[in-house]
C-alpha cells in the first residue's frame, strides 16, 4: 500500500511539472530568505561584537581629569606617577596587571619613507592587560624596560607604510630624531569603534618615551586589567578610593581622575546588537509569512483541478484515506525538496553577500533547521488540508466540482 501511494505521488509530481515547480519555488524562496536574512543579521552582530572584543573586555582605563569634555578651567589635575602604578597593582584586590602609558607623536623615517604616527610608551604589562598577538618578534625584556632602551614594537599600519609590509624585526628606523630597533610587529586589529586606527602606533618602553619625547615622568593613562572572577564595579570603587587617598582629595570633593570601564561599554554595545538581532528576526518572520502565502496560493489554485481528480479516484474505488495519503506524500516530497534547495540557495547567497557586507561568513545550524521545519510544515499543511476537504466530499460531488 505504501509503495502504491509513493508511486502515485511521484507520478503526480512529475506529471504536473509546472504546479510542482511553483509549489517548490514558494518553499525555496521562503527558506532561502529566512536563512539568509537571519544568518546575515547574526554575522553583522558578530562583526560588531568582534570590534567590542578588540577593546579588551575587563579593562579599566584611568585618566587624570574628569572624563571627556569636562574639567575646563581650573588648574590641570596632576598626571599619575610611577608610584601610583605600583600602588594600584599591589593594593587593589582583583587587579591582574597595570600598564602605564605615556603618549607622543613623531614622524618615523626609514629608507626615504616617512610616516607620522603615535608613540605609546608602556611596559610589557600592556600585552597582559590587553592581549594583542605579535606577528613576529617579541615584547620588551625587563632589562630594556628598566634601562628605557630605544626598542620598538610597531603596529601593522606603520609596518605597511614604513616597511612596505616587509619583515621589519631587526630593522632600525629613526623616529623623532631617535634611532630605534624593531623587536616586534603587531597583528592587525582593524578600526575600533572609537579613536581611529589602532594599528597606527609605535610602542616603546615608557622610560624611553618619557626621557626622549615627553621630557617628564608623567603617566597620562593607566590600563588596569581586572581578574574575571572579580566584579569590575567593586574593583573600580576600591581603585577610586585608593587614588583619592593618594591624591589627597577631601571627602565630598569631586574626583580629579576618571575611570572608564570597557566592560560597561561592551554591555551597552551588546545591548544594541541584541536589538539588531530582534529586527532581523522580525524581518525573517515576515519573509516566512510571504513564502507561506506563496505556497498557500499555489496549493489553493490547484484545488479545483485536484478535487475532480480526487472524485475520479474515489469513483474507481479508492478509499478516502488512500487518496489523502497520496496527497500527503506529494506535499512532503515537494516540501522537503523545496526545503533542501532553499537551504542550498541560502548558502550561496550568504557566500556572495558576506564579503560585500564585510561581515564574517557563518553557518547557523539552528536557523537552517527552524526555517526548513516551518516551511515543510506550511507546505504539508497547505497541500494536505484542501485535499482532506475534497476527499471528504461524496465522490459525485467531487466529480462535479467546477
Amino acid at each position, binding site marked *: *500500500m505504501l509503495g*502504491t501511494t509513493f*508511486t*502515485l505521488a511521484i*507520478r503526480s509530481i512529475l*506529471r*504536473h511539472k509546472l504546479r510542482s515547480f511553483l509549489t517548490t519555488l514558494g518553499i525555496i524562496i521562503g527558506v532561502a530568505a529566512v536563512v539568509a536574512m537571519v544568518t546575515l543579521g547574526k554575522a553583522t552582530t558578530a562583526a560588531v561584537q568582534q570590534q567590542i572584543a578588540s577593546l579588551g573586555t575587563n579593562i579599566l582605563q584611568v585618566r587624570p581629569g574628569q572624563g571627556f569634555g569636562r574639567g575646563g578651567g581650573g588648574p590641570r589635575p596632576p598626571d599619575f606617577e610611577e608610584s601610583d602604578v605600583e600602588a594600584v597593582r599591589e593594593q587593589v584586590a582583583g587587579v591582574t596587571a597595570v600598564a602605564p602609558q605615556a603618549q607622543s607623536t613623531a614622524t618615523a623615517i626609514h629608507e626615504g619613507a616617512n610616516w607620522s604616527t603615535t608613540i605609546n610608551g608602556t611596559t610589557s604589562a600592556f600585552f597582559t592587560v590587553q592581549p594583542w598577538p605579535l606577528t613576529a618578534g617579541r615584547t620588551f625584556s625587563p632589562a630594556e624596560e628598566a634601562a628605557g632602551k630605544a626598542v620598538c614594537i610597531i603596529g601593522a599600519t606603520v609596518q605597511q607604510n614604513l616597511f612596505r609590509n616587509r619583515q621589519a624585526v631587526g630593522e632600525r628606523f629613526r623616529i623623532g630624531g631617535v634611532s630605534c630597533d624593531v623587536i616586534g610587529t603587531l597583528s592587525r586589529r582593524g578600526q575600533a569603534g572609537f579613536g581611529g586606527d589602532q594599528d597606527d602606533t609605535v610602542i616603546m618602553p615608557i622610560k624611553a618615551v618619557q626621557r626622549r619625547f615627553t621630557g617628564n615622568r608623567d603617566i597620562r593613562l593607566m590600563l588596569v586589567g581586572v581578574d574575571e572572577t572579580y566584579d569590575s564595579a567593586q574593583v573600580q570603587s576600591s581603585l577610586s578610593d585608593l587614588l583619592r587617598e593618594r591624591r589627597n582629595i577631601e571627602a565630598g570633593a569631586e574626583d580629579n581622575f576618571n575611570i572608564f570601564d570597557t566592560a560597561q561599554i561592551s554591555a551597552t554595545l551588546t545591548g544594541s546588537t541584541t536589538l539588531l538581532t530582534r529586527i532581523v528576526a522580525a524581518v525573517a518572520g515576515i519573509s516566512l509569512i510571504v513564502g507561506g502565502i506563496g505556497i498557500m496560493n499555489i496549493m489553493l489554485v490547484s484545488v479545483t483541478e485536484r478535487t*475532480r*481528480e480526487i*472524485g*475520479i*479516484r*474515489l*469513483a*474507481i*474505488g*479508492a*478509499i*478516502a*484515506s*488512500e487518496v489523502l495519503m497520496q496527497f500527503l506524500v506529494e506535499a512532503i516530497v515537494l516540501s522537503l525538496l523545496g526545503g533542501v534547495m532553499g537551504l542550498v540557495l541560502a548558502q550561496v547567497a550568504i557566500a556572495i553577500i558576506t564579503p560585500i557586507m564585510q561581515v564574517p561568513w557563518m553557518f547557523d545550524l539552528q536557523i537552517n533547521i527552524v526555517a526548513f521545519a516551518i516551511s515543510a510544515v506550511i507546505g504539508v499543511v497547505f497541500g494536505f488540508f484542501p485535499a482532506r476537504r475534497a476527499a471528504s466530499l*461524496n*465522490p*459525485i460531488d467531487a*466529480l462535479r466540482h467546477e
Partner: protein
Amino acid sequence: MAERVADPIIRLRGVTKTYGEGATAFQALKGVDLDITGGDFVAVMGPSGSGKSTTMNILGCLDVPTDGEFMFKDVHIETLDRDQRALVRRKYLGFVFQGFNLLSRTSALENVELPLLYRGEDKKTRHDMGMAALEKVGLDKWWDHTPAELSGGQQQRVAIARAIVTNPDVLLADEPTGNLDSERSVEIMKLLTQLNQESGITVLMVTHEPDMAAFANTIVHFKDGLVERIETGMRARVDA
C-alpha cells in the same frame, strides 16, 4: 452464473433521495422500487430531471439514498460507511460517465491500470490486465496516448476499459454516448453489448436516445422521481 440469473443482483425498495434542506429541499426520487437481474442489459430512460442520474449514482455507490433499501448481492448497501462503499465500488462495480473523467496527462494504459493499483495488484498483473482491457475496447495500439491525444469516442472507450479492467459484476454508464456522434455512439453500444454477452457483465445505461436503448434487453422508464414502467425481453423479441 446460474445463480445470478435467478436472483436479482440489485434490489431497490422505496428509495428516496432529497437534495438540500428546509425550504430549498428537493425530492429527486420519491420511492423507487426496482429489481435488476444479473447479466441483464438495462437501458434507463426518461425526461430530463426525472431522477435517472440520481438513481445511477446510488446504484454505483457514489451517493447514498435518503431513505429506503438498496440491496446489492444481498448486502444492505445503505448501512455501509464511506470506506465500505468504496470497497464495493472497487470490487464489484465499474462506472462510465458522460464526461469520460479520465486523468489528464496520463496515458490510456495508466488510466486503465488505476483501479488495479488501488486493488494492490503487482506491476505485471496491472500491465497485462490493463492491456487486455484496452484490447477489448480496441485501443491496445493507443495505450501510451494521453486523453488529450485521443478522440471523444476513444476516450470513452478508455473509460469503459477502466471500468471493466477489474472484471466487475455491474457496469454502470450514465449517458455514455451523450458527448458522441451517432457513429461513435453505435460503436460504444456494440462494445457494451459485447461485454454484456461475452463477459456476462450486468450493464445499466442511461440514455435519451431510443436508438441506443434498442441495444438493451430491458428498458426502465423514469418519470418524476419514480419508475413509470419497465419493458423487458426486448432482446428475445429482436432475436426472434
